[in-house]
């Protein structure tokens, strides 16, 4: 199979790789770049565990080919912590028991980040609808919803 050259920026770092055109973006991040924080839960775009930000928007990395991300700027869960400090959203998940097994957590965090960027003052219903893009089987979502509510307040006050 012909190799294609891709150049992507992930978490503010530039990567260039020669890859097969069929390589999924999720596999590219995990296997080529070693960024295993992005998890694969269904590979058919339902569970949302593989959600990353592509040019600022939440996207399922299992439904994109890596070649489609050529030239794009990506954020994965590894890019949320800054200067050794948890992102306010990560901190809120910790404080409100927004995770148990942790497998959906990366996708949940990036989906919530996208939600809070587009809607900084979400109601509980808006949070629940916004997060319905990611499946969590452990928490029953309550801790996650509380965490996003708390993070919304924290992010507004830090602006």
């Amino acid at each position, binding site marked *: 199979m012909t190799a294609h050259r891709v150049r992507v920026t992930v978490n503010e770092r530039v990567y260039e790789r020669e890859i*097969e055109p*069929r*390589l999924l973006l999720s596999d590219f991040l*995990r296997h080529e770049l070693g*960024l*295993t*924080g*992005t*998890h*694969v*839960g*269904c*590979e*058919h775009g*339902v*569970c949302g*565990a593989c959600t990353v930000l592509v040019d600022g928007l939440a996207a399922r990395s299992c439904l994109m080919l890596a070649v489609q991300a050529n030239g794009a700027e990506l954020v*994965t*869960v*590894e890019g*949320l*912590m800054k200067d050794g400090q*948890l992102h306010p959203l*990560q901190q809120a*998940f*910790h*404080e409100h*028991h927004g*995770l*148990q*097994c*942790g*497998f*959906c*957590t*990366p996708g949940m*965090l990036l989906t919530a980040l996208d939600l809070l960027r587009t809607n900084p003052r979400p109601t*509980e219903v808006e*949070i*629940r*609808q916004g*997060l*319905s*893009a990611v*499946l*969590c*089987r*452990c*928490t*029953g*979502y*309550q*801790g*996650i*919803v509380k965490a996003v509510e708390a993070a919304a307040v924290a992010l507004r006050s830090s602006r």
Partner: protein
Amino acid sequence: METRPATGLIGAPAKRVEDQRLLTGRGRYVADLVLPGMLHAAFLRSPHAHARILGIDTTAARASAGVVAVVTGDDLRDHARPIRALSRMAGYAATDMPALASRKVRFAGEAVAAVVGESRYAAEDGLDRITVDYEPLEPVIDPRAAMAEGSPLLHDDTRTNVLLSREFSQGDVAAFAGSAVVVGDRFRFHRHAAVAIENRACLADYEPGTGALTLWTSTQVPGMIREALAELLGIPAHRVRVVAPDVGGGFGMKSALYPEEVAVSALARRLGRPVKWVGDRREDLLTSTQAWDEDVEAELGVNADGGIRALRAKVWADIGAYSVYPWTASIEVIQVVSFLPGPYRVPHYHGQAWGVATNKAPMGPYRGVGRPVSTFVMEALLDRAARHLGMDPAAIRLANLIRPHELPYRSPSGLVWDSGSFAESLERACEVVDYARLRAEQRRDVSARRRTGIGIASYVELTGVGSAIPASPGADIATGTEGATVRVDPAGTVTAAFGLACHGQGHETTLAQVVAQELGVELDAVRVIHGDTDAGPIGTGTYASRSAVIGGGAAILASWAVREKALRIAAHRLEADVRDLELSGGVAWVRGAPDRRLTLSQIARSAYAGAKRLPKGMEPGLEATRFYDPYIGTAANATHIAAVEVDLDLCAVALARYVVVEDCGRLINPMIVEGQAIGGVAQGLGAALLEEVVYGQGGQPLTGSLIDYLIPTAAEMPRVEVIHLERPSPSTLGGFKGVGEGGTIGAPAAIANAVADALAPLGIEITELPITPERLFRLLAARAEAPPSCT
């Protein structure tokens, strides 16, 4: 001096130590692990539910780019014995489950060949080039039909599809004759899938020089897998190490031994290179153990005052194609019959159970095991009896719930309830929801197209089961004990190692709370290790709501042993009487003379320095391994109340209110208990309203994706109110009771009863779960007075 006592750690809502790595993408799940020279396996799976394999042509696959090996069931037979779950239970027939099917496939999705390649992509390319010649056989789909003479057989050697039959009896069901009301029906609780968000995965590494095998696997039971692999592969057990790293949810489904774990281990040994398999969601929905799937005929007879006279039930379980190791085909259906009488006085009981093999994925344990079904049936019968008698559902329960003065209570199936707050949990739940007001509002409900309903479910479960009864009756495996090794190093920090394995419960936090408090150190001085058979004492793993009780008990015993030794060393060094010493926050001091003190580090240095610094005759070192067996275990109970709105036009059910009043004994960490309860309710809500594994004509699975198998999202979940009663167990060390499964036991029944309550004026009963919009539509359409407007 200042010594901050570390008491009060048990019961504190300590934030989890697991969170930092999981929140930053630094968790290590099996799929994340990479070894030098690692190969990737992919499995070819049968498209037929029941077929003979006439031949497999692997020639083209072997020639495919990047393919290293292709193996079939015949190739693997000499390298791994088939999985066989044994049981001492009368009326049980064991089955052989091969790592790869040979000669015959028994469910759609069963693996028939494996391709090992340099990448997963290359391995899957190889799969496409294998040709299998199948001769389709008549599939066995319906368990009741499968019991009949002349039905096709799944397993020739069992000579029947009935892998299990059992009967329970107490008193005389002739007592039905004197009942004021007898209610009964046929209930169906359909097949479910656990859907852990991390799919199953394993990575095997065989070291030819020493003959040692390491298997990293997404499992709840590394100890069990180790024993089984040693036996099936013929490797001495001390050369087998099984590691469960971070595990992305299990819910019981990851507590069985899977064919892929055997196959990947055998392949790694045969190829001399590490082999990894990462299952995808389709493989999970087709081949991971499925759950519940029972058909129940039950009858309840009550007196005019609501008092229960007699109960009888027949339960048919569809156990799928194989009896899973180690739980056997009995795990689910026996629990249904054992737990059916619930927390109620049932003087006369007769229960019969059959586990029947069909051409579907094997049934295994899933959160609640049997009790979601038994609770659904019993609670539905009580509500019906109440309706017939014109009694309130709460009142009929209060008339029958076993009271504290009757405990310990031997249930009609022989289970013992050591303690419980059955009536108290119901009364408290009614108080919290303001039951009287809810009922009054319901009576004022004027909008006939949106009906409100209130559903109650009270249940009792047995948790932390010790050696008196195996977690799966008759199964050939010890499930009643766990160990803990608590080690203080010269720096004064503590490592506590367990045979348990964690898949989201937060053991690294809760068990550290127990050790820190019982030993007398700060919480962050304790590190918990679990899920690695090389690192902890012999144990089986985490399942059956056992870890807090059994692991917690072992943690207490080991911590006490270390504490006692530390105090004796400190007394020697401080020239004090050991009875005058305190140890807390990592410091030992003489009561009343706080400057006469030693840190745990100083004590540990003495312990490892040897005889010169130790009391005469004391063995050096500062660590202890202790095992704990709670013997009968302990009852945990709860009452759930659900308030629903049923939209008769949309055929939709929405949860307006959900209250859980649970008693898991003494709380280790209320934040984590609440998370367990709410997470359990979410799975129960899925079971009640959304989730169903569907097999179509010919045994074809129709729910092979998460578009077809729906689990609750944040949008379907109500805000759940959880109240802890916290009545410490009198039977377990620490007073702990198990809490991992309870939420899923109560929720299906509470929600079903709420929907039934809403629809009772229309003469509609709920006998089948899940209550999907389609089922609701059919129920309503059958009632001329209230057809959905969307017809």
